[in-house]
């Protein structure tokens, strides 16, 4: 029969998810199944998205949930609708916080990505020969998003492991997850510590770090005194690398939307069509891309 697979994501406006969808579409075209793409920003939307998939006769779906704690509800809803379930990016957890092992998952832990960011920054600090004790770190935070907390915590943990003093990490809370909000928050931090010469910045994604980079430019900090490392590697980061002169945006940890989109969709198809269950857990790696390596990194990851 016709195979129909759902792909539900939490923030359809984010480039990352656009990419995931794009690669999933490629899988759909290859295998000749229908892909239903639904954006679901909160628990309620997720519930209706699953109902909707059930109603239109899908056999299974892949989801990046707005909140991992929605796990039991999603599992129950999928069961009620007779849908096979796989998760991507973020792994579902039980009420007690333990991962729901029964649901196949492909992703990279938010903590791990964060750690990669922190490590990249620490390495670069050392390379530039700065004294860790005199470097300021901007933690562009958006604490209402659990993933965001995990990522920056990851970054902080590897910075600390490399000897970065915790007291030098300053919080720049974004009011929203866009660049302008990050820019405004980071400006305040920079102005408050006007005496600090060297700065590093990390955050939820590329947009957040870009805000900090823009802030550094407005207060006159030059790129050689600033190390910003983002997460994602979408166009906003690539645009930065394409600029004629280097900026404070040092690098970004690219995660591959190709694997997350294409492979998950393919796995689900195999599961539905040939009853071949996907591996219970696939962890992908993030890869650091810099101004002069990003083309290559993207090629390696199969983007472009």
């Amino acid at each position, binding site marked *: 029969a016709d195979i129909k697979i759902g792909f539900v994501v939490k923030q*359809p*406006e984010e480039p990352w998810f656009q990419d995931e969808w794009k690669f999933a579409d490629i899988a759909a075209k290859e295998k000749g199944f*229908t892909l*239903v*793409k*639904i*954006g679901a*920003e*909160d*628990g*309620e939307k*997720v*519930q*209706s*998205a699953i*109902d*909707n998939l*059930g*109603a*239109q*006769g899908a056999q299974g779906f892949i989801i990046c949930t*707005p*909140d*991992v*704690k*929605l*796990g*039991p*509800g999603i599992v*129950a809803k999928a069961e009620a609708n007779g849908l096979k379930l796989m998760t991507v990016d973020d792994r579902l*957890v*039980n*009420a*007690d*916080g333990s991962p729901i092992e029964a649901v196949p998952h492909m992703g990279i832990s938010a903590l791990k990505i964060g750690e990669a960011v922190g490590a990249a920054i620490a390495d670069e600090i050392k390379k530039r020969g700065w004294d860790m004790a005199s470097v300021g770190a901007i933690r562009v935070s958006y*604490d*209402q*998003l*659990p993933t965001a*907390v995990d990522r920056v915590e990851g970054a902080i943990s590897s910075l600390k492991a490399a000897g970065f003093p915790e007291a030098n990490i300053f919080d720049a809370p974004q009011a929203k997850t866009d660049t302008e909000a990050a820019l405004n928050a980071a400006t305040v931090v920079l102005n408050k510590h006007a005496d600090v010469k060297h700065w590093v910045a990390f955050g939820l994604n590329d947009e957040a770090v870009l805000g900090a980079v823009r802030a550094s430019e407005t207060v006159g900090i030059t790129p050689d005194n600033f190390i910003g490392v983002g997460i994602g590697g979408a166009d906003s980061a690539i645009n930065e690398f394409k600029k004629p002169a280097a900026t404070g945006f040092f690098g970004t940890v690219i995660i591959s939307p190709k694997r997350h989109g294409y492979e998950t969709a393919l796995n689900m198809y195999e599961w539905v069509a040939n009853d071949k269950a996907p591996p219970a857990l696939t962890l992908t790696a993030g890869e650091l891309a810099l101004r002069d390596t990003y083309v290559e990194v993207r090629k390696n990851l199969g983007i472009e």
Partner: protein
Amino acid sequence: MAFLKRLLLGEQGLLVIFVIAFAAVSIFVPSFLTERNMLGLFQSVVTIGIVACTMMFCLASRDFDLSVGSIVAFTGMVAVMASNASGSIVVGLIAALACGTFVGFVNGTIIAKLKINALITTLATMQIVRGLALISSDGRAVGINDPGFYQLALSRFLGIPTPIWIMLILFCVFGFVLNRSVFGRNTLAIGGNPEASRLAGVNVDGMRIWIFTIQGLVCAVAGILLASRITSGQPNAATGLELSAISACVLGGVSLAGGRAAMTGVIVGVLILGIAENAMNLLNIQAFYQYLVRGLILLLAVLLDNVRSTGLGRK
């Protein structure tokens, strides 16, 4: 022809247009008119439908409530956390209802007694309450320990899930209250002419406090049902609910200038929003185009209603 005109332009014209649109969607959108999808559709509008009931009163009395989304999220958290802490679902529910009612009461009191603009007041409580929800849960969803809590949303009566029943009951109750009770008529009077109502001895301050308080209570009901459906309390839940609920009301002919409201209209408004969303997903319309379509449907719906009422010679 004349009959058709009378039908379309009559009091129930909005309903008639809606029925026609519904029929069209049923025909052209595959798997729309199936029992499963209908149940899914109704469940998807439970939160907004419930909140729209009291939002209607709020708007009809010429006020505004932007804090509904935050209250829904907050009370959902409270229900879950209090249930978990006490080990009793009933305690959880009571705590949630009490919190919702309290926030509503505070809203109403500030607005009525301190005479602070409702928009600003509820914009403030919207932030404060959302802050409380985030603080109490450290920004993360809180899972429910006792699976009995899910039953609120999963249980069915005559094959229809409880939340839908609750929404239908609230539609009836508030429809009745609006048209047949002193409370409802006074609400419309306050919105239509606050000065006249005051001079006629209507306790305007008291009414406003009640309206917001009930709004808070009803948001708590919606919050509990939502927590039960998503099996957790989510501090980020229901953002943007205020605008959806207000749209549903305005679509349904509730006047923002106060004084005019009808429950059937609001129900139609809620369904229009729900059907638009549902049909777009069934048709697999791309996320970005959904924005366009949603906007156009809004415009079209009000425009149609407008053409209708001017055709009727009303203003």
